[in-house]
């Protein structure tokens, strides 16, 4: 059997997807010359595409601004791009609602699917944001790309809907794992973890499993021990003397602290930490933006447009950066800037964060 890429089928559900962020620097420049209009350019933040404004009034200005990349001020807020630096613009034209964007060979650099897919989304969503553009014919070095961008069919002009529509079914539950054996020792460990806020009381069942392992990792992160998930001698000794974690900063009401150095999220009511969650934040180059934010958008089933993946139980708090469920929450920072929450906590945690909840992302704790 010859391996051949297949054309992917599309689901009917089109998730809402792009977020506008106020670009402070560009906004000021636009205001200084009232005659100038502005164009909108699609960059990436967390798991989503966000639009920023740039001065200009033509499609070419928008595409050139996209190729130029985010400003230093935007980069500080972890707004990024997957368009390779120095990608030359060969041709940009608009005819009958179809924009043709012909880019230099550099645009096809790389073998990582997520980067290649995201940069196509950026080009298409930037061009189709421009008034009068319905679809985009993307060319590289004057030719029609075949297979360069995994999961995107670039043979025909692409509409915004083409790149936004989910192309995978929503995640199905994982195959059930045989439960571990029950033991009094495991129950005691779980009770201790639950007493400190690392495990919900409902999860104390005396059986080993991924949820308990994740709670042990969370404790190890808090106590700054090796993050192996095993209740070894050092971990057990630390558990003996540990007290419930306390908030890093003073705050009021229900709020969340995300501790980047420890890879933990603390759910806080007033001054009491009610739960400590094992999370994974943005990997280097995709850092989760430091600062104080508010939950601004909630989606039970969210679809990442640039990276083509489902993000169940998503609570967005800055641009495309959200808390969301993910199958894989490794002990270190691994995401595109979002905060991954393990599947057993994701739905519960989603319910704890009404819109407007303050989320403080701290580099050090």
């Amino acid at each position, binding site marked *: *059997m*010859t*391996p*051949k*890429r*297949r054309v*992917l089928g599309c689901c009917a559900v089109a998730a809402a997807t792009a977020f506008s962020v106020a670009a402070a620097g560009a906004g000021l420049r636009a205001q200084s010359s009232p005659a100038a209009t502005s164009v909108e350019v699609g960059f990436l933040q967390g798991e989503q595409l966000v639009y920023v404004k740039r001065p200009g009034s033509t499609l070419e200005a928008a595409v050139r601004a996209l190729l130029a990349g985010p400003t230093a001020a935007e980069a500080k807020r972890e707004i990024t791009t997957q368009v390779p630096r120095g990608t030359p613009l060969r041709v940009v034209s608009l005819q009958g609602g179809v924009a043709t964007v012909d880019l230099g*060979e550099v645009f*096809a650099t790389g*073998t*990582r*699917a*997520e980067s290649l897919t995201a940069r196509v989304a950026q080009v298409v969503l930037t061009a189709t944001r421009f008034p009068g553009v319905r679809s985009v014919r993307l*060319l*590289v*070095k*004057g*030719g*029609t*790309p*075949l*297979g*360069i961008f*995994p*999961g995107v069919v670039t043979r025909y002009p692409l509409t915004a809907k083409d790149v936004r529509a989910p192309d*995978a*079914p929503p*995640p*199905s*539950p*994982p*195959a059930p794992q045989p439960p571990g054996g029950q033991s009094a020792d495991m129950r005691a460990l779980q009770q201790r973890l639950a007493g400190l806020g690392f495990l919900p009381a409902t999860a104390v069942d005396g059986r080993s499993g991924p949820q308990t392992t994740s709670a042990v990792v969370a404790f190890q992160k808090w106590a700054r021990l090796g993050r192996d998930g095993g209740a070894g001698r050092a971990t057990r000794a630390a558990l003996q003397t540990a007290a419930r974690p306390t908030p890093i900063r003073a705050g009021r009401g229900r709020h969340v602290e995300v501790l980047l150095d420890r890879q933990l999220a603390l759910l806080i009511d007033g001054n009491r930490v009610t739960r400590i969650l094992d999370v994974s934040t943005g990997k280097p180059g995709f850092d989760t933006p430091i600062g104080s934010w508010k939950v601004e958008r909630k989606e039970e089933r969210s679809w990442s447009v640039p990276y083509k993946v489902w993000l169940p139980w998503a609570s967005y708090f800055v641009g495309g950066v959200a808390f969301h469920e993910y*199958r*894989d929450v490794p002990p270190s920072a*691994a995401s595109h800037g979002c905060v991954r929450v393990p599947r057993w906590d994701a739905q519960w945690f989603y319910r704890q964060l009404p819109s407007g909840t303050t989320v403080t992302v701290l580099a050090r704790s």
Partner: protein
Amino acid sequence: MIKPLVAMLVVAATLAVAAGAAAPPTKTPGVLTVGLAMPSAGFQVGAVRGRDVVLAKGFEIDLARVLAGRLGIPRVRFVNEPLHSTLLTSGRRDWDIALAQISITPARAQRVDFSTPYLRADQGVLIRRGLATKPRSIADLRSLQLCAERASTGGQLILDRIKPTRKPLLLENPSKLSYELFTQRCDAIVFDAPALAVLHRQAPDRYGALVGRIVTNEQYAIAFEKGSPLRARINTTLKALAAGGILTRLQKRWLGTSTSTLPVLR
């Protein structure tokens, strides 16, 4: 960083050739014309205008460039056939060689000539992230939730040779297959090993390891029109590339893993 690698190999080869035999005859003198059937992830992707390939990259693209260099042919031109099958029709063609993961079969060998194989393809086993123990044998696979494409070599292999205790999931197409491995509904998938190596290479964060292969012994070879004078020289060169480890290096660069060095699951 393949460009310096290929350039180096090509330059070294050209120097060696300059001292020896003259470049073999090609359809257009001084140009090796290569027929492709794009796209195929990892093997050959690019951009085309009409039939002309304006940008090409992948394992088979670099293989063609290295072959031309070793044969002392200064230029390579790639042309794309929209259908894989048109590469295999009999009669005279305007290309010198065809490269498109063409596996050798007796039926095809009646219409075209084949080179010595440049890649052996077996069935590979790719596991999901977080699977507790890495399977090392066919017996280890039995208790896992296995998945394969419906009506595929891999699916048949699961039923005939692995005989798992849990019913395997047979999915409609390769993209569903990889997606369900990512969602962890499947513990392991069985599919063409080179394709799995590419999948793993493109999205290493989404899957676990490519743990091994189950030998089925498909062989990918270069096709020539019947009686091509290039065949003997290309065979000699291919053997030298294999012996010198060049094929393995190109394979690692573009396909992620050299699937012929994967452990065999028995």
